[in-house]
């Protein structure tokens, strides 16, 4: 291990929660990393279509020691998979720091608030509030879309649960969920001049960290961030830029046409097409983008979404050098005495 910077206080036995530091809202490691001013790395775990917990652990193992937090998606693309709450519960059992994703598509306010309490009870410290894709884009287009809340009202509801110790109904919560609240933003979709204002709304509603949609257009992110800094939002929330490797020009074209909100410029597709090994080029492109976004003031980290290429995440994080010698928590280094210091 070449890593030099380790925070032994961030290591603890699974099931033994870390202490909540002064000024923090959660006891989670993600909040610690971000508040220390370190460049954070999160990654998206694609949930299994199985009831076997080992499938979750195997997928998480690919990120072990390379990421600060793992996003467990909640029926992404409106497709049916193992639930986010269950994945998070499995991950906290062995010590990982998961981010619970909540989509408003499948649950109403009663179910969502119940899940928030349950997740917090299982040791989950981070929540990402999403509206969710329409049911029409998934494998059950005939399902009833719920959308009782939207991402912003969801943020406000959970913030109220945490800070005022009350459900949306006003009924009291005896032990509030201590959660670091996140939201998504897409700086690459119209109406572009509304996007920073929407971010401000999310911050006002309670968002403390933001994970963006895939960034393949760095100049566009720069413009967005300039506006965000002008509004002072970069000082009110931690913004993690979404990145990911494209396996081929063909997939890039498909994603652009079929995945809502993904913006891929022609130049990116041309670069992939011109490469002898498109997969390797996709990885290099991802690393280049990470290095570029890292230089944008106000970007506090990256969120790596490597769908079906999870095995490359470690390599991408390593080669881009964004951890700068820092060693995130690892499953095999449990306990405060274990990490090499």
């Amino acid at each position, binding site marked *: 291990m070449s890593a030099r910077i380790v925070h032994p206080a961030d290591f603890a036995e699974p099931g033994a929660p870390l202490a909540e530091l002064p000024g923090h809202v959660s006891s989670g490691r993600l909040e610690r990393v971000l508040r220390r001013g370190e460049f954070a790395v999160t990654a998206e775990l694609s949930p299994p279509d199985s009831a076997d917990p080992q499938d979750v652990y195997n997928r998480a193992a690919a990120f072990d020691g390379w990421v600060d937090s793992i996003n467990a998606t909640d029926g992404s693309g409106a497709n049916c998979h193992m639930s986010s709450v269950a994945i998070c519960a499995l991950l906290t059992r062995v010590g990982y720091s998961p981010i619970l994703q909540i989509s408003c598509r499948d649950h109403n306010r009663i179910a969502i608030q119940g899940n928030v309490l349950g997740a917090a009870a299982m040791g989950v410290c981070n929540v990402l509030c999403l509206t969710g894709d329409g049911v029409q884009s998934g494998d059950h287009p005939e399902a009833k879309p719920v959308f009782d809340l939207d991402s912003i009202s969801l943020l406000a509801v959970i913030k109220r649960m945490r800070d005022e110790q009350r459900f949306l109904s006003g009924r009291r919560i005896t032990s509030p969920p201590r959660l670091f609240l996140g939201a998504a933003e897409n700086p690459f*979709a119209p109406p572009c001049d*509304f996007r920073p204002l929407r971010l401000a*709304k999310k911050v006002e*509603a309670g968002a403390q960290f933001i994970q963006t949609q895939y960034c393949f257009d760095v100049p566009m992110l720069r413009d967005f961030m300039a506006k965000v800094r002008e509004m002072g939002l970069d000082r009110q929330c931690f913004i993690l830029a979404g990145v990911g490797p494209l396996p081929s020009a063909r997939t890039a074209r498909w994603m652009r046409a079929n995945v809502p909100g993904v913006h891929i410029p022609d130049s990116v597709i041309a670069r992939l097409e011109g490469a002898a090994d498109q997969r390797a080029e996709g990885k290099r492109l991802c690393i280049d983008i990470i290095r570029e976004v890292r230089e944008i003031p106000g970007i506090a980290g990256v969120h790596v979404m490597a769908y079906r290429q999870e095995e490359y995440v470690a390599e991408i994080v390593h080669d881009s050098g964004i951890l700068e010698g820092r060693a995130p928590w690892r499953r095999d280094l449990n306990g405060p005495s274990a990490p090499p210091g």
Partner: protein
Amino acid sequence: MTRGIRVPAAFEPAGKRPRRAGSFALRFWSVRHASLLERLYAAFERVLTASAPLLGWIGYERLERPVAAAERLVKGALFDCRMCGRCILSSTGMSCPMNCPKGMRNGPCGGVRPDGHCEIYAEMPCVWVEAWKGAQAMRGGGAIEQVQPPVDHRLKGRSSWLDVARGARSGSGTLPS
């Protein structure tokens, strides 16, 4: 893309189809004339508030059905109103947010297509792209930045005009309602 059965939006009443960009629909006219409608509704709001004693004398519950029917007719034509019962058109550039298949009341989702159309109904301009246009033409367009609470589903189908007259909700920034 899959063809076949159309799944209605969360709030879509039977028989109402998503509006095509090219087709004539008053909804798009209303957004283009958001500034005019804003002034009209400000005047209407004053009338409603002024007539509160009269309405109270007649009885709000007795008025509920006829006024809700009139509201459905007028706002249905002008905005494709879905009668959510908690009208926020003045905060949404005169573009009814309940026409969004996700019923988003706080701004556009991240899936808006590059041409500004809905991620679910490719032929329909995004309700929030429209709202943003309308808000920029309105004097009180800044209200689009307010965080909106979730809908009270018990109010669905009820008149929000009467709510304003009753003073059940704050006037400016919330009308037409």
